[in-house]
């Protein structure tokens, strides 16, 4: 009798297993269109980015940082088949004698005139803010105590220095003098310092950090305005 019951339970379990659906998750490529009208805005002039001067906490930076960010953006856009960009050399040549100032950002008429001079449909300009924020932190971990013959809780104090870059990017339509894109991109990175290395970091060069953060912010902007593929999960049912 027991055997019959066991067989019955086993058959029941097997039947239930057979009824259930298993699911396979697959990644599929989905095309994400540009957030701007790429048929209209197909060629750009990228002007050097300007450092925001009103911000008190802005770090002291070499003046060529804005041009470096613009140069990274030009390279990123030039790689996209939908866009044409005025080269860095050509931009420098056409801007000879001019210095891009912060008040240019609000002067769309002037930017539009520059765009006509560059013979482009849109002008990309922007500003950046770079600052650091340091806070004491405590790291809790375990260390082996020889005296107690076991691991004990221990902590270590350190300084966490966070670098923040806020990059504002604008696209100005040359024909209509309208701002068609105005977005800010914030990127940050953190370092852990002892007292010695913290003092050194305060006086040391930060150009590489801002370059890296700028590259990441610019990549995000380029991705938004270019058609691209992203992976998305879908479910296949067995």
């Amino acid at each position, binding site marked *: 009798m027991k055997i019959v019951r066991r067989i019955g339970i086993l058959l029941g379990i097997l039947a239930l297993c057979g009824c259930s659906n298993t*699911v*396979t998750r697959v990644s599929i490529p*989905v095309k994400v269109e540009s957030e701007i009208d790429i048929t209209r805005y197909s060629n750009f002039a990228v002007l050097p980015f300007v450092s925001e001067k009103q911000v008190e906490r802005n770090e002291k930076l070499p003046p060529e940082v804005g041009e470096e960010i613009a140069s990274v953006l030009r390279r990123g856009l030039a790689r996209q088949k939908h866009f044409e960009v005025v080269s860095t050399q050509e931009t420098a040549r056409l801007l000879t004698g001019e210095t891009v100032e912060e008040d240019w950002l609000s002067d769309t008429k002037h930017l539009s005139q520059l765009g006509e001079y560059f013979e482009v449909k849109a002008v990309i300009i922007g500003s950046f803010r770079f600052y650091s924020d340091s806070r004491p932190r405590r790291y809790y971990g375990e260390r082996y105590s020889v005296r107690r013959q076991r691991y004990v809780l221990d902590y270590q104090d350190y300084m966490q220095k966070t670098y923040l870059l806020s990059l504002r990017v604008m696209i100005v339509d040359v024909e209509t003098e309208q701002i068609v894109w105005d977005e800010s991109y914030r990127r940050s990175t953190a370092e852990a310092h002892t007292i010695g290395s913290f003092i050194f970091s305060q006086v040391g060069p930060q150009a590489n950090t801002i370059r890296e953060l700028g590259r990441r912010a610019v990549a995000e902007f380029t991705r938004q305005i270019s058609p691209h593929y992203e992976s998305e999960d*879908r479910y296949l049912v*067995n």
Partner: protein
Amino acid sequence: MITVLRYGQLASIAILLCWMLSGCAIISRDVTRTEAYNRFAIKAAEAQLWNEAVFRWKQVISIDPEDSKAHNNLGVAYEALGNIDEAIASYQRAAELKPNNKYYRLNYRRCRIHLRRSGGNDEEALQLDEPPLTE
């Protein structure tokens, strides 16, 4: 006489059983075939061979047009190939056949959101609920 009767009964039961089993075998042959196609197509999809997967799922649908799994999976394959209109039609069919399946609803919703993001006119996409994947 009793022995003959008993054998006669046994023989009729045996014939009946054989007839039932053969019927089951015919049905199960189709089920096994569609399951095999489905499994193969999923393997192909995992290897990103979407055209092969589409071919197999179409075969499943030609055998059993009411197979909701095949319609859903075909929708995924169409979406991967960029045929969004056909993908939506397949997801809709799967959801019609099994309206309570959370995976069909999830795929359908995501496809419509993607359609909306890529400039298609699908205002209702965001109003569809995202079904929870955990019970």
